[in-house]
Each structure stands twice: as C-alpha cells, then as structure tokens.
C-alpha cells in the first residue's frame, strides 16, 4: 500500500460557459497505473487539463503528494513533479528532438536531489538519440509520441498524465510504448494516469480504471474489468 499521490475531490470545471466536469472525485496511490475511459465529449481531456492546471477548477480540491494544489499555476504543479503529455502530443515542431527534451528539464525541478534521466529516456526510446538533431515537426506520429513522453519524463516526475497516447499511432508502436511505460512503472515507481479509448492499450497497461459520462465518473473498474472487452464496449462504443 503506497501513499496517495493524487486526490481529486468533487471538481467542477468548465471550458467556455458551461460546466464540463460536474463533480469528479478520484484518488490514486503511488505506483498505480489507472485509466480514465469514456466516449468523446464526456470530459476526459478537461479532467487532465484541470489536474495539470491549464483549466482552473471552479470548485473542489486537488491534492498532489499531500500538497494542496487546487489554485496553483500549471507551471508550478509541473515543477512539483507532474509530467504532462497532452492529446495530440504537442511537441514543439520547430525545435529539434534534443531541444524538445531540454524543455522538459523544468518538470520536477522543485524536488530535492532530483536527477535528469536522459539515460532512461534513451534506453526506452533509442530513436530519440538517433534523431537528436531532427526537427520535431518532421517526426512520425509514433516518434512524436515517444518524444512527448520523453520530454515529460526527463525530469523524473512522480506522476505522469497521458491524454490518449494511442491516437493516430500504429498498433506496433502503441505496444512498444505500452511496454516501456509498464517497465518505467515497475523500475521507477512512476504513477501513471492515462485517458484512453483504445481497448488494447487499456487492457495491457491499466491496473484499474474509471469510466466517465457527461462530466461525471459513473463507474469504477476493477482489475479484471479493464481487460474485459465486452465490458468496456458499454462505455466506449456507440
């Protein structure tokens, strides 16, 4: 049993004039890999953005590693140890691979005795070393995903937020990424919270999950349920 690394209580937040999140609560222990699933428009991305702080929570509380971060700026939350990989990767297209990774050095910079983990990144994603001087915008989708993850992990954060990591990527690459993430979770005690719609990745990676609909969490999924395809269809498909 580890300590709670992320606690979200009754969050309301919006994107425009309406409330997208209508009272979301969840908690994650250190070392877990947790999935958030649901169809489009249910608020999964809004949840991720609220956790990292790009969207401020209108009501409710967020605690990271025991610290109150509800009103803390995104930048500070990142420096406290949260790595964020948004939907669509959002790597810096006009920066080289090396420069992209460099921008990740601010993540977790507030932690004492933190070390930069280029070794880890290159070990899991050797292509990032091969193509260090290539412009980020010229990489393929899968390579960009690896770069985005590498950028988030270079600082050695404790919590990794991933928003639909499989979107637009070949199945083989998805599998590779899944394997790397599982290893990192084991060896580095990296907690992972990820939003996904891809049944395969959910089944491989997640230890448990939450299903969302219309801005709320409607079900908590046990370990075996996240691997049950028929069960997942209810929350994902048409």
């Amino acid at each position, binding site marked *: 049993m580890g300590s709670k690394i992320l606690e979200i209580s009754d969050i309301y937040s919006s994107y425009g004039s309406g409330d997208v999140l209508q009272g979301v609560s969840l908690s994650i222990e250190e070392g877990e890999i947790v999935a958030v699933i649901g169809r489009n428009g249910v608020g999964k991305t809004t949840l991720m953005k609220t956790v990292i702080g790009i969207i401020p929570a209108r009501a409710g509380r967020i605690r990271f590693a025991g610290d109150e971060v509800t009103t803390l700026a995104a*930048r500070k939350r990142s420096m406290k140890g949260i790595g964020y990989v948004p939907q669509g990767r959002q790597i810096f297209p006009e920066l080289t691979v090396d420069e992209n990774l460099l921008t990740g050095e601010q*993540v977790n910079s507030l932690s004492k005795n933190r070390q930069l983990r280029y070794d880890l990144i290159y070990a899991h994603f050797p292509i990032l070393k091969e193509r260090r001087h290539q412009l980020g915008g010229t990489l393929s989708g899968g390579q960009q995903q690896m770069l985005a993850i590498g950028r988030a992990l270079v600082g050695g954060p404790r919590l990794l937020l991933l928003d639909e990591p499989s979107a637009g990527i070949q199945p083989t690459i998805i599998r590779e990424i899944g394997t790397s993430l599982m290893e990192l979770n084991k060896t580095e005690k990296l907690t992972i919270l990820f939003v996904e719609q891809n049944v395969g990745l959910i089944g491989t990676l997640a230890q448990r999950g939450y299903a969302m609909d219309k801005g709320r969490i409607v079900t908590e999924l046990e370990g075996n349920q996240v691997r049950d395809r028929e069960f997942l269809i209810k929350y994902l498909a048409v």
Partner: protein
Amino acid sequence: MIINLVGNLLYQFADNMAFLLLSALGLIIILGVLNIINLAHGELIMIGAYVASMSYYAGFPLWLCFVLSVVTVSLFGVFLERFVINRFSENRIGAMVATWGISLIISQGTLIVLGPSMRPIPLPPWKFSIGAYSYSGYRVLLFVVALILVFVLWLYFYKVRAGIFTRATMQDEEMAKSIGINTVGIGTLAFAVGAGFAGLTGALYAPTMSLVPLMGTVFTAMAFITVVVGGGANPIVGALGSSALLALVATPLTTSFGTFIGRVGLLIAALLIIRVMPNGISGFVMDFRSRHIRTVKE
C-alpha cells in the same frame, strides 16, 4: 565609372539596411515573443542616444557609453513591462495605444526637462574610398554591427537555454507552461532584450544625428513598417528578410530620384508585401515550410 556607381549603391544599400535592421530588431523580438507592438520603441532609442551623449560628456570612452545605454534602457524596459505592458498581453491594439501614450510622455517629458537638444557626439572621422567617392567608415561599421547583433540573437535563440525556452514559448505557450517553463519571466526577458537593442541602436546612431527629443519618431515609423513586413513568426528571418527587401527597393529609388521617392517607394512596397503576405515574410516562410515538409513515415 561603373565602380563608382556600384560602390555607391552598395554603400547606400548597406546604410539603408543597417538603419532598418537596427531600428526593427528590438521591436520584432517583442512582437515575436509577446505578440504586441511597442509604439514607444523610438523613444527607447532616443533614451539610448541621450544616455550615450551624457556619458560621453561625463568623460567615458565611447564603447562604455554604448554599454551604459544598453543597460539603462534594458532596465527601463523591465520596468515598463512589469508595470504597463503585461496588462495588455495578447491585446495588440490596446498595447499600441498605451505605448503610444508612453512615447508621448517620454518625448515631451524629455523636451521639458532636458530642453530642445542634447550635445552631439562627434562622428568618428574614419573614411574610405571606392573609386571616386569617399564614404564614412562609421556607417559601414554600423552595418557590420547590425549583422553581428543578428548573429548574437541567433546564438541566444539556438545556443542558450533561455533562448530555446523562448522559442518553445513562441510556438506553444500553453504547452510550455504545462511543462514548467517560466513563460512570464521569458516575456519580461524578451522585452528587456528588445529594449536593450533599442538602446544600443540609439547609442550607435547618436554620432550621426542631431539629438533632439523627437528623434525617435523617424525610427518608430520605419521600425514599425519593417517589423510588420517581417512578421513575428521568426524574428531573425523576419528582420533580415524585411530590412534587406525594403532596402533593396529604397536604395535605387533614393539614388536616382531622391530621399522622398525612396521613402515613398519603401512604404508602397511595404503595403504591397503585407497585402500579399499578411503574416509578413517570416510568417510566409514558416507556412511554406510546414506545408511542404511532410511528416516522415517510419
């Protein structure tokens, strides 16, 4: 005969381009990073010139006067950014109007406090000849300095950590924030750097002009035009491309028909370029690149 003509044209071109480049460099950095237009830019240049003159007559060597100008105006820039500019982030029109107010205050304030003119700095009398004409070595030096400044800027953007963070912020500010980059600090730094460049421009041109409180207006107008034609997407490409192109248009016109026609030609060229490339030269170049560079399939 040819060598006289060519020599003259080259000199004029270098002179014109240097003027546009030095005027615009500071302003285009601010546009690129903060997305605003600072209409007090000319007045920052004027302050640089005035500080240079005052330090010169205080006995400092010329090079030190330049350094003092840069430092003074940079610090003033930080002050401006923290107290005024950051209230207008992303509000370009508002920033334009507010900085115009600042420019009026600075220029008229200077007139009231320091009088209608400042003691001029003597122009270093370096001369050289091409063919039958002799030219001012100082002005050619300004062209060289302008190019060196572009190089320094390049070093900042590509070799210095803060510069790389700045480029990241320019490309995707929200993403930069969410991975811990101090985008606000970078904005202030960019303004300070832009102001510093302005101060240096003023100091450099001080020996070539009469120092009056309104001397900034000439710089503002030309800087403004050059920056808009250049575009903020890539300050280096924009500043170089714009100043070169506009100087290319203005030089033959000025040499053949006089300053007035040269200026009008420049302005008309600017109008046409903006019409064809609404995001400026650098915007056009960046669009072109992203359209034709395809993601490499594995």
